[in-house]
């Protein structure tokens, strides 16, 4: 809870702090129409210890993270003029202006007597000729055990990204997904987890039962997902640390489409029985559940607004799958189409809409759209306005948001018969790129920022 508050405060104060510095200071705009990546130089880190390879690896991960945003042009070290950089000395700015660097990251790697490692860095505004303060400090120093070196790298990249864009960080996160192997008619599906850049892939379930649609809790320690364990499709909680799995609730019929509430205290899920699917909200402490929808049509895929007051879901009550919003307490809403109703339809363009996910910022819903034999990932305002399609392919499905609401991860079958792969796209629709996995992969879900 404290962490959520801190993040909210950052989100509130960030634009203010950005408005204050001198006009000359380097700032990367993420929404600019005519976009050109900002040139950024990240030379190898100074090595104060034995393991030069680790220093190199850390710098490589920082470069890869920042490059992956599509916002930065990470410059080729061969073009660098100044070779005698030190974190303790101001760089020779003219040397960097010649190669048109705008931001310069200078880092140092140290091995400490207790076996830990420390990485320090400063971010320089080359044209402004000054250091860019991060949280009021002229640089940062991060310490950890050597096996955690990738997380240090992600945190450094997060600091630089946040300082330059004003956006909340998202590199120090993980992605949970379903790893798929075997032929289509005998598919083996396992729960898998990896760092946000695809490193450290691990399989969490053995594949004896089909598992689907994992989603992170806001604590990042727990996952809720659906499993066919015991031959019945039902929603489970899974603890990442202990590997322990726990059945959620005692519903007749099947339960599926789980998703945590934003405060992590409850899970939204769908229960289906006798041909009818309804959405429930289960309190994880009391284990009491409350039915939210009441309609003979299919109601599924619920996702809660950040303030917890409303949910967006898929329903075919209008004849085909479309997106609807309702208040969590069931009270009537004023609908975008006019009039008051318990559930307001928000999608009215041509096509079928499903898998809605409310953005962490609260203003948008990401969805899968089907139209004319193609699948799209898109976003729409909660008032049903401003639909934008970000991707298109033979099958694009199942979007989820990065914790800062800038990037969407989803899965794609690029052509008929192709296995599913994970992809990500920026909210601007730019920078579509593959997220590498060892096997075919589907149903990705993004963790919150790690502690």
């Amino acid at each position: 809870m404290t962490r959520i508050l801190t993040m909210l405060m950052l989100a509130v104060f960030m634009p203010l702090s950005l408005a204050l510095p001198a006009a000359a200071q380097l700032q990367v705009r993420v929404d600019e129409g005519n976009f050109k990546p900002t040139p950024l130089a990240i030379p190898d880190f100074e090595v104060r210890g034995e393991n030069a390879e680790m220093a190199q690896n850390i710098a490589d991960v920082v470069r890869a993270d920042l490059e992956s945003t599509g916002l930065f042009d990470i410059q080729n070290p061969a073009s660098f003029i100044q070779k005698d950089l030190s974190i303790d000395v101001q760089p020779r700015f003219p040397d960097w202006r010649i190669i048109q660097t705008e931001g310069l990251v200078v880092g140092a790697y140290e091995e400490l007597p207790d076996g830990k490692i420390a990485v320090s860095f400063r971010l320089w505004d080359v044209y402004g000729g000054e250091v860019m303060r991060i949280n009021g400090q002229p640089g940062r120093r991060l310490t950890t055990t050597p096996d955690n070196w990738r997380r240090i790298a992600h945190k450094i990249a997060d600091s630089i990204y946040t300082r330059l864009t004003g956006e909340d960080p998202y590199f120090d996160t993980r992605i949970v997904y379903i790893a798929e192997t075997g032929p289509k008619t005998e598919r083996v599906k396992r729960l898998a987890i990896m760092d946000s850049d695809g490193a450290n892939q691990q399989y969490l379930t053995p594949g004896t039962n089909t598992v689907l649609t994992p989603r992170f809790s806001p604590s990042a320690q727990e996952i809720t997902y659906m499993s066919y364990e015991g031959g019945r499709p039902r929603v489970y909680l899974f603890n990442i640390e202990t590997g322990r799995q726990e059945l959620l609730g005692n519903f007749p019929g099947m339960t599926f489409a789980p998703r945590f509430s934003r405060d992590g205290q409850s899970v939204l899920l769908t229960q289906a029985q006798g041909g009818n699917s309804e959405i429930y909200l289960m309190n994880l402490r009391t284990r009491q559940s409350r039915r939210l929808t009441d309609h003979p049509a299919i109601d599924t895929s619920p996702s809660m607004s950040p303030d917890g007051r409303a949910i967006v879901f898929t329903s075919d009550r209008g004849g085909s799958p479309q997106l609807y919003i309702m208040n969590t307490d069931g009270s009537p809403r004023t609908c975008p189409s006019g009039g008051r109703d318990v559930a307001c339809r928000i999608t009215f363009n041509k096509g079928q809409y499903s898998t809605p996910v409310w953005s962490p910022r609260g203003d948008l819903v990401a969805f899968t759209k089907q139209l004319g034999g193609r699948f799209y990932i898109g976003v729409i305002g909660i008032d049903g306005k401003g639909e934008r399609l970000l991707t298109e392919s033979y099958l694009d499905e199942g979007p989820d948001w990065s914790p800062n609401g800038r990037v969407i991860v989803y899965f794609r079958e690029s052509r008929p018969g192709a296995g599913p792969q994970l992809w990500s796209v920026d909210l601007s629709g730019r920078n579509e790129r593959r997220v590498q996995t060892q096997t075919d992969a589907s149903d990705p879900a993004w963790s919150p920022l790690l502690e």
Partner: protein
Amino acid sequence: MKTTLKITAAAAVVLAVGACASKPEPVEQVEEKAPVEVVDNTPTVTEPVDTKPVGPTGPVAGSLEDFRVNVGERVYFDLNGYRLDSDDQEILKRQAAWLESYPAVRILVAGNCDERGTREYNLALGERRASIVKDYLVSLGVNPSRIDTISYGKERPIAAGSDEQAWALNRNGFTQLVSGTTS
């Protein structure tokens, strides 16, 4: 269009099972409770059987093979649909009659969808398909306590292709005999 696809579907199932099943109208057959011995020189099939003659013995009555071959274990749905047309109803009538003959048999009705829908919606749609099949069997007199249902959404395709023909096969209600058959 749908009829053509269904014939193809039936053909594919028959091919998978074996060649002895090419009976297009086996409705009358299910009334025979005694073991059905299909004698060589009196084939019941109405189509030419020049490629693979029917063997001296058909499937054992009350067996899984009997159900597959003489009754039919799947009904096929339209795109995004969950209604049972007259072909589907015929198959389910045969299933109900067969189940009446073999009262120890318990079944699991699975609802399946093609890959051209999203995962969670398809899980709900598959549940609806399985329930429709169950309700129809119950309306024909099958005791509901003998029927379980499950939805596999788009997780259990029977045809691996990615074309209209494969999708039509994969949109099905599958009646699986879980216990009580004669082997």
